[in-house]
């Protein structure tokens, strides 16, 4: 939201100059002026005052050939600036296609996988039986219905992802803040290894750059996540490698290589296009647990033994 358009890499200030009692002139950035428009108050978010010696510019990074690369905003360290509010546009397109196809509301609402989700998944035979059982008789136990964070890659790929997510890059971490159930992933870039005794719904993420692609290695899953409401699932041996590549100012090419040797015959890949949300849009918090009243209505045939109905 607060990126500068046509941003030139700014020389990095390496010295922390102590300023005593300096009165900073408040400056309104060009981007904010255009984004917010009209008469705006002084934005104190952008204090000026870059007087003084600047450190020399760091050498230009290697830029891979890509469409419209000149419009990709970059941070002072040369990496693409992924910051802002994004949504899964491939999912959105899938939803619109279902609506237009006249398949009927039930299918349009239920069948939400983007085209880049390679159905059917290559299950091992026993795992496939489990998938079938969960789909037909046990959707009550989909953890998303119980307000759990969706896990990786579900939080990016599934309909919940039509809710936007915010990316912030603060030099040591890339942080993704999802509107959906205020899920958060803090991704360190310091090269540290995955922890040993740590089992999480969202796993443990470690990121690094390969050229202009941000690569995230995710492991340490707790085996409780599903992939959708149709019984597709993973277990505790899931391992994911995500790749985020900006193809233009408003688009990110996203792939997730998913492997799970106790569930699938072979690894498989999701491929999505993420698109930037309109400038005025912001996260509108979506809680779940605090007001959840739905799963009590699931019937017994859906796995809710507590409901006296079939």
């Amino acid at each position, binding site marked *: 939201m607060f990126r500068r358009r046509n941003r030139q890499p700014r020389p990095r200030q390496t010295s922390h100059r102590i300023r005593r009692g300096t009165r900073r002139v408040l400056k309104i950035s060009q981007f904010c002026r255009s984004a917010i428009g009209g008469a705006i108050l002084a934005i104190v978010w952008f204090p000026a005052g870059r007087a003084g010696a600047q450190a020399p510019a760091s050498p230009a990074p290697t830029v891979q050939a890509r469409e419209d690369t000149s419009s990709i905003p970059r941070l002072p360290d040369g990496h693409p600036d992924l910051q802002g509010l994004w949504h899964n546009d491939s999912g959105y397109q899938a939803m619109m296609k279902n609506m237009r196809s006249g398949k009927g509301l039930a299918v349009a609402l239920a069948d939400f996988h983007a085209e880049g989700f390679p159905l059917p998944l290559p299950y091992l035979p026993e795992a496939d039986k489990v998938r079938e059982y969960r789909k037909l008789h046990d959707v009550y136990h989909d953890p998303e219905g119980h307000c759990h964070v969706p896990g990786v890659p579900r939080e990016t790929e599934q309909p919940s992802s039509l809710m936007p997510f915010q990316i912030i890059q603060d030099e040591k971490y890339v942080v993704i803040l999802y509107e959906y159930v205020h899920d958060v992933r803090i991704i360190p870039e310091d090269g540290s290894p995955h922890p040993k005794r740590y089992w999480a719904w969202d796993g443990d993420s470690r990121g690094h750059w390969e050229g202009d692609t941000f690569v995230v290695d995710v492991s340490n899953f707790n085996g409780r996540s599903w992939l959708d409401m149709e019984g597709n699932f993973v277990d505790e041996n899931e391992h994911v490698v995500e790749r985020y590549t900006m193809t233009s100012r408003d688009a990110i090419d996203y792939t997730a290589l998913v492997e799970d040797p106790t569930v699938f015959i072979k690894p498989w890949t999701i491929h999505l296009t993420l*698109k930037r949300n309109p400038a005025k849009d912001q996260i509108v918090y*979506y809680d779940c647990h*605090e007001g959840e009243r739905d799963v009590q*209505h699931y019937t017994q045939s*859906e796995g809710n033994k507590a409901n006296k109905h079939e």
Partner: protein
Amino acid sequence: MFLVFAAAALWLVALSPAIAHHSFAAEFDLDKPITLHGTAIKWEMINPHSYLTIDVKNEDGTVTRWSVEMGAPSALYRNGWRKDSVKVGDDLTIDGYRARDGSNTIFGSQARLADGTRVLGGAPRNVPPPQPPASSSTDKPSNP
């Protein structure tokens, strides 16, 4: 025709986060549409779903309390809804789908206030239609 798609898109944008958290088809029966006329008792614009509680007068004069589940506040908010959009005592007509478990619960797909304002499935009359998520090649925002 395009406007129909655009309107449908807006409606689905409002609807989809509602189905994200749980399986819509598991809870509601799309083969059992229903229309209710009632008086608003309570409007809870809460997460993960908003709830409208209404009292419906039956033909025999008795009153039945119904719970109308609606979209996520974030979706409603982006469509111009606020905490005070529905007041206690407002008369409403609601189209929706019955819950499978037989309870007096429906999912509300469209609500109309007595004054004719469409309050769900589209923006209220005095609020310009919102933009759908960032541009795709096939969908443009509808004009106010």
